């Protein structure tokens, strides 16, 4: 009911045609049409349509509806009977019911967790009034791995000027990050430059202040209520003036900050307060600075002037609000037209084949792009988790299917009687499906209990501090859960329902044993596939855990023990290092611009002075003269860097750099000079250090060329080695000293060991998730096996009794009962072991610094699987073989 306002809703018509008696359809539809046309004369099309639905639903009367073969009364009686028999079956076969319920519930709870995650993500940015018409503009160019969430700065205004389909455009430009100062109080503040149009596109409302004018005049600011509280407590912030000093704090992505020294931007007036806690949005900020403040800052080069820069598209976020009724295709067409014209004569490497595209506001939260505004789980993550959950769910459903088929024999008589008394195949299918749905709904209740256990565990995972899953529960989520449970019931029950309902009554009633209790072929196949999956998960999680341990114990080639890294936060390095170096408990102090092996790298290109050889690409680390010594990096030739001020043209190379630059021995390179590609400097090598790992272990296997150089003005961190005795006391003394040097900024430090291990923390989460899934997979598979074995043992009670009476031993009976299942296990291992070896090798080969993956890991996994499998069947077989044959034979 969208584009044609003057026709009656087609869906309502279809509903009518479906429920109405055939002979009534024509006149009723005619009457309703007439009514609709008449309503249209006086009321809005929407009201008319609503009325049509009202009228249509009022035809849900017995006289008008199609007659079904059996009247609804009999149906409901039958249904009651199905439910009753279903419940009786559940209570009668407690072991099977437990296996089914437990397995389904465990698997469901995992699926429910993922449903909750998705529901959580879908709540983002739902509060905007015009959310269906708001789009973010993405940039893309040749060879980029994924689209950027950012676009050129002037784009917003250019689009608004040239294309009438844009009702409004707005941009958000990061670059505000520093100290807000109000009456001696200093608070960190990060945010965007934003134009007044921000409030016309988005539906953030101001707690205080006027949204129309808040971002109008230069040097005005809208701040978050949290910031307002920090700065002003309970005073009214509106109209207050604060001083702002920018420290280039990283924003919007909040990785460990390396702020530069504060640089005053002057004073700003608070014109509005936003309560961020009210909104779930992909946009989070402490402050919005009016975009009209920017020109004054360009003049003093406090921020780069991009107002006419079409080549840089790495900072600004552009959003457009389309006119009512306009479609995303029209927007994309406009964007194409725009890039064709604008980029025709811009020839730059980064805008080669430059493309702009639109992303609907509601897709942003799940569609993570490069340079995005916050960190969240990308879509592939959901696919991965969904895939794992689906496998577990499938495995649990297979248990149900398997056990139902196996129990067919027990139920054959019931089916026969039902058929003889007139049930047709359809109603039997309906009966078995309703039974499986009852089971899955009961499982849902149990699953809900499990969910209460696993949801907090999931929220407690390390990664969640970046992803911020809240997992709230709402009515709509419950509806989805119930729908999901019904779906699972249908899937799990489909095969048994079709299979059982196909029995021929005469056969099953005449001779029970003549009916085939489900072909063992299918059941074996299902069991085997469960165990193959389990084995695969077990091997994978062992492997990932080994990889994690490998990273944790990795020898980087330098020592990070008892080392803390202190952020300088713009303070003078020499002063701080002298002061902190004198604290008792401190063994040594050095300084660097970045912390090696934690993710940040800077590049440099070198070639020998006076040649025009190709530049050799490497990385550069700016350190003081003490760094190499402090981190226990060996100097294999030459001398360490000289103290700052003497000469900053001296450099150290690592062994790889020596080789890459074409020197045989480390000694040859000492005293050589090199030119840099950027900045035209000439550097002289004074020493060579042993190779050490200075990049993320995940990304780089081989060590690349490295240059060490002493440039104090770029130092951001002090590396302080402390004595192992009472480290916290030393840190407390350091902090006290820091307060005297910089009373404003808090002392910020991290243990180097922690920093290094946190780079692999995500892998540990993967271990936790995979291990959990593997555990569930094997538990469910074993439960299935247990069910089958129990059933076989029950069916063969008499046989066992007779055999025993005739003198069979316990072992031979245990073997007779379990050989079928041992076969299943062995086949599973034969398929699963090579499979998990090959598949795991596929991803492992892509990883740098990988762990040894031999048959040992596969063997360990196989051992775990077989152990659990044998315990499961063994216990039953032994019990059956030990039972007193008299009991078995008496039973009739």
């Amino acid at each position, binding site marked *: 009911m969208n584009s044609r306002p003057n026709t009656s809703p087609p869906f309502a018509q279809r509903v009518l045609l479906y429920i109405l008696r055939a002979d009534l359809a024509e*006149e009723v*539809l*005619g*009457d309703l049409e*007439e009514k609709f046309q008449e309503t249209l004369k006086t009321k809005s099309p929407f009201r008319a349509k609503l009325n049509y639905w009202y009228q249509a639903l*009022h035809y849900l009367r017995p*006289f008008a509806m199609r007659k079904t073969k059996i009247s609804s009364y009999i149906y409901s009686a039958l249904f009651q009977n199905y439910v009753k028999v279903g419940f009786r079956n559940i209570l009668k076969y407690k072991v099977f019911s437990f296996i089914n319920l437990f397995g389904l519930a465990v698997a469901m709870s995992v699926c429910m967790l993922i449903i909750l995650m998705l529901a959580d993500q879908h709540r983002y940015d739902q509060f905007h009034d015009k959310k269906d018409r708001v789009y973010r503009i993405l940039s893309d160019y040749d060879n980029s791995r994924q689209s950027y969430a950012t676009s050129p700065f002037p784009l917003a205004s250019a689009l608004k000027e040239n294309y009438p389909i844009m009702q409004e455009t707005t941009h958000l430009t990061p670059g505000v990050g520093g100290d807000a100062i109000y009456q001696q109080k200093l608070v960190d503040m990060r945010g965007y430059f934003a134009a007044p149009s921000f409030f016309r596109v988005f539906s953030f409302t101001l707690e205080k202040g006027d949204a129309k004018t808040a971002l109008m005049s230069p040097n005005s600011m809208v701040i978050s209520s949290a910031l307002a509280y920090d700065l002003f407590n309970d005073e009214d912030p509106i109209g207050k003036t604060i001083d702002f000093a920018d420290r280039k704090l990283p924003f919007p992505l909040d990785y460990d900050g390396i702020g530069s020294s504060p640089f005053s931007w002057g004073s700003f007036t608070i014109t509005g307060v936003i309560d961020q806690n009210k909104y779930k949005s992909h946009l989070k900020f402490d402050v919005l600075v009016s975009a009209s403040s920017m020109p004054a800052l360009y003049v003093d080069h406090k921020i780069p002037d991009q107002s006419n820069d079409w080549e840089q598209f790495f900072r600004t976020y552009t959003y457009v609000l389309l006119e009512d009724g306009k479609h995303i295709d029209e927007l994309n067409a406009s964007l194409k037209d725009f890039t064709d014209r604008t980029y025709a004569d811009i020839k730059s490497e980064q805008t080669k084949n430059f493309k702009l595209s639109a992303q609907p506001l509601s897709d942003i939260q799940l569609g993570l792009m490069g340079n995005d505004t916050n960190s969240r789980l990308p879509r592939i993550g959901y696919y991965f988790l969904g895939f794992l959950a689906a496998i577990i769910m499938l495995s649990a459903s297979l248990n149900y299917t398997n056990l139902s088929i196996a129990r067919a024999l027990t139920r054959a008589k019931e089916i026969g009687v039902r058929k003889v008394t007139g049930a047709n195949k359809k109603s039997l299918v309906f009966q078995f499906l309703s039974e499986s749905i009852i089971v899955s709904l009961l499982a849902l209740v149990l699953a809900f209990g499990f969910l209460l256990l696993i949801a907090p565990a999931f929220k407690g995972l390390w990664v969640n501090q970046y992803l911020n899953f809240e997992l709230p529960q709402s009515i709509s989520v419950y509806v989805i859960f119930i729908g999901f449970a019904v779906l699972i019931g249908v899937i799990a029950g489909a095969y048994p329902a079709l299979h059982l309902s196909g029995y021929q009554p005469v056969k099953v009633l005449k001779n029970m044993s003549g009916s085939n209790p489900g072909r063992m072929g299918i059941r074996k196949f299902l069991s085997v596939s469960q165990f193959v999956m389990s084995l695969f998960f077990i091997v994978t999680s062992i492997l990932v855990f080994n990889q994690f341990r490998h990273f944790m114990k990795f020898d980087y080639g330098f020592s990070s023990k008892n080392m803390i890294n202190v952020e300088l936060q713009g303070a003078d390095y020499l002063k701080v290092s002298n002061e902190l170096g004198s604290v008792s408990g401190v063994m040594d102090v050095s300084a660097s611009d970045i912390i090696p092996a934690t993710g940040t790298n800077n590049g440099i290109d070198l070639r020998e002075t006076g040649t025009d050889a190709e530049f050799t690409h490497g990385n550069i680390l700016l350190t003081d003269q003490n760094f190499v010594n402090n981190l226990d990096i060996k100097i294999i030739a030459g001398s360490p860097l000289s103290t700052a001020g003497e000469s900053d043209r001296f450099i150290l190379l690592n062994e790889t750099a020596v080789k890459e630059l074409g020197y045989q021995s480390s000694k040859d390179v000492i005293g050589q000079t090199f030119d840099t590609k950027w900045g035209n400097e000439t550097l002289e090598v004074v020493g060579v250090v042993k190779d050490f790992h200075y990049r993320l272990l995940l990304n780089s296997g081989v060590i690349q060329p490295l240059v060490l150089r002493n440039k104090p003005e770029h130092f951001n961190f002090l590396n302080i080695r402390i004595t192992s005795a009472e480290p916290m006391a030393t840190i407390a003394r350091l902090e006290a000293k820091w307060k005297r040097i910089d009373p404003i900024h808090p002392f910020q430090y991290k243990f180097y060991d922690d920093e290094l291990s946190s780079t692999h923390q995500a892998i540990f989460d993967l271990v936790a998730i995979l291990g959990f899934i593997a555990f569930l997979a094997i538990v469910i598979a074993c439960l299935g096996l247990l069910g089958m074995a129990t059933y076989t043992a029950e069916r063969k009670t008499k046989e066992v009794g007779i055999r025993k009476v005739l003198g069979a031993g316990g072992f031979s009976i245990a073997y007779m009962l379990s050989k079928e299942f041992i076969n299943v296990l062995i086949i599973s291992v034969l398929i699963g072991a090579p499979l998990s070896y090959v598949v795991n090798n596929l991803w492992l080969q892509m990883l740098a610094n990988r762990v040894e993956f031999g048959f040992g890991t596969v063997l360990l996994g196989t051992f775990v699987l077989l152990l659990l499998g044998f315990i499961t069947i063994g216990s039953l077989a032994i019990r059956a073989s030990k039972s007193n044959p008299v009991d078995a034979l008496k039973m009739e």
Partner: protein
Amino acid sequence: MKETRLGEFEEVILLLAGILGEEAYAFKIADEFESQTGRAVSIGAVHSTLERLEGKGFLKSEMGKSTAERGGRRKRIFTLTAFGKKVLKESRDFKMSLWQQYPAFATDKLNIA
């Protein structure tokens, strides 16, 4: 044995069907009902009553002409049967006789609104 009593709503609908004559089909009757009584009624409710009246033998029906505003669909025209007319008349006579036995009516001091 078929039910032949006439309910209040049924009686009104039957009367309206008689009044509308050639134009007596579900939508028109519902429309007329709304404008005469000021009470809202769904077409479905009227239709079900018509169907019931037909079952009791008070109405008969046949398919009529189609018009453009109905999307070319025909309408079912209901007409009173002789039996229907008789029932209506009996109902009226019965009420009249009741009214005449009501003394306040004769003295014209009727106090019911």
